[in-house]
């Protein structure tokens, strides 16, 4: 197991990773409450970004509707808890199954009938929008008035029902993000990982080499959707309230993909680096605005826009590939690699 995980990773990379892990593990000991909430947000975006990256970064299928899977996961687990008292550790299986089923439906419709590229992206948006409107009218789930989880009177941290302090959520989120990272690392070095990269680079050539591209793309959507839904489960139990207008909104889908785009699509570290950069910078910006007493609604979105513009113009591969090279780490497997003489 260990050699499988560390094979081919430069020593320097392992050391950096170890140092980074220790810092993350120790963070709640020193971080203020506010900083901790920011870090939870960072980890959340790193996690869902990693999940989205499987589809876009590995298999080359652009989804602009990943809020659908977040929302399905959140609502499935929350509804089971609110209506039947079923805890999140059981609920998450239903969450994953619902999201996987939705992903499989979209994937089947698109890949069976040759819907690709922009049209595929539009289809993913359409499904997220259907869900938003549908859940808005689904009174059993609170409809547009929202679904609320009971928050009162918990004594201490209860990991079984995910009722507890931000510190508990921080560690759960950290475990999830770390698992997603390891899972993606393993996937990328497995048969299916190579198949995804091949499909991303040239579907025709991949097919000529014996790859069943329909099946591989289906696996990518289903895995990505199921993973994303777990982010939704945590989202529901952390925020304790769900509104279709918010969870399924397209801006949520966009927010979720900014991390991997800015960090580096198709890389393992990119979604994490991107989530760190974006979330901390955006929060810092809001803090500064608050401190000087300026209230500009939408400033975060404008900021995201500028970040995106900057990356597209100056770092088309994202922040991580050049950063990784600067840190003395070679080309990562699956890295899109822009060509010029890289070995």
């Amino acid at each position, binding site marked *: 197991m260990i050699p499988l995980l560390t094979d081919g990773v430069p020593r320097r990379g392992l050391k950096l990773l170890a140092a980074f892990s220790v810092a993350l593990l120790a963070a709640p000991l020193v971080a203020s409450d506010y900083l901790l909430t920011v870090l939870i947000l960072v980890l959340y975006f790193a996690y869902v970004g990693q999940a989205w990256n499987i589809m876009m970064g590995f298999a080359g299928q652009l989804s602009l509707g990943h809020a659908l899977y977040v929302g399905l996961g959140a609502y499935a687990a929350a509804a089971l808890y609110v209506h039947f008292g079923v805890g999140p550790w059981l609920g998450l299986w239903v969450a994953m199954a619902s999201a996987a089923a939705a992903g499989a439906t979209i994937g089947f419709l698109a890949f069976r009938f040759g819907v690709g590229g922009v049209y595929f992206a539009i289809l993913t948006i359409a499904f997220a929008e259907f869900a938003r409107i549908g859940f808005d009218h689904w009174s059993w789930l609170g409809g547009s008035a929202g679904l609320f989880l009971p928050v009162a009177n918990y004594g201490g941290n209860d990991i079984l029902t995910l009722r507890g302090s931000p510190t508990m959520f921080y560690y759960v989120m950290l475990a999830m993000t770390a698992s997603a990272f390891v899972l993606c690392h393993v996937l990328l070095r497995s048969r299916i990982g190579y198949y995804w990269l*091949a499909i991303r680079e040239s579907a025709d050539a*991949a097919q*000529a*080499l014996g790859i069943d591209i329909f099946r591989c793309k289906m696996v990518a959507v289903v895995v990505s959707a199921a993973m994303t839904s777990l982010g939704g489960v945590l989202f529901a139990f952390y925020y304790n309230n769900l509104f279709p207008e918010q969870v399924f909104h397209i801006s949520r889908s966009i927010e979720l993909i900014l991390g991997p785009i800015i960090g580096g699509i198709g890389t393992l570290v990119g979604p994490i680096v991107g989530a760190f950069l974006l979330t901390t910078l955006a929060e810092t910006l809001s803090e500064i605005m608050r401190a000087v007493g300026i209230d500009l609604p939408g400033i975060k979105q404008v900021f995201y826009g500028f970040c995106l513009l900057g990356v597209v113009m100056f770092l088309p591969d994202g922040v991580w590939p050049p950063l990784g090279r600067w840190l003395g780490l070679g080309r990562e497997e699956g890295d899109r690699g822009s060509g010029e003489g890289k*070995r």
Partner: protein
Amino acid sequence: MTALLEVDGISKSFSGLRALENVSFRVPEGSIIGLIGPNGAGKTTCFNVIAGVSRADAGEVRLAGARIDGWRPDQVCRAGIGRTFQLVKPFAGLSVMENVLVGALNACSSVRAAKARAGDIIEQLGLAEKRGAVAAALTLPERKRLEVARALATGPRLLMLDEVMAGLRPTETDHMVALFRTLNANLGLTILLIEHVMRAVMALSSGLIVLNHGQVIAAGPPAEVTGDPAVLECYLGEEAL
């Protein structure tokens, strides 16, 4: 000799344009057959029909006696046909090693075994120095070799090569010719090649098939076919006369 590949009366039209018309030929097991003809004769279309990229309007394709027409390209590959693309389609963002590895996965049950296989084939194709380079950084002749390496890595019984020697220097062509000879002799690999470089075709082929305007106008031993007046007129004319 039994036929490994049998093409039986295939026709294919593209919105009125008849690219293939009742084309039939056989490729015996263990042979190297050249498919030649002028530009636009339908050679690549013929490959695409065999490989499952396009569906023929009529006719049958059989591999070792079993029908494969109507199959998807990946199924055709798994059945034992490896093909290269005339317009090379490398996995541009992946390294040479990763490119060939993807092909080798078709022949191996584990990633580890596929890596070893890919390494050997990269060596054979003379790409060892480039194994870590991304495919986008290769020169055109190198990309042609990568195309061959990938197809070969899938472990085919029949290798279909679409103008892999176009644009190569004479020494590089000789190297490729020697490689295909070795593969044919040592592994019994059957090869069907489309090629305009007559030097290579004549050096390799035990039989030739000539296509013109989507029809087979001659087929048989190279010496016979190249002496055929119809072939001389439509294809070899300028060079031979």
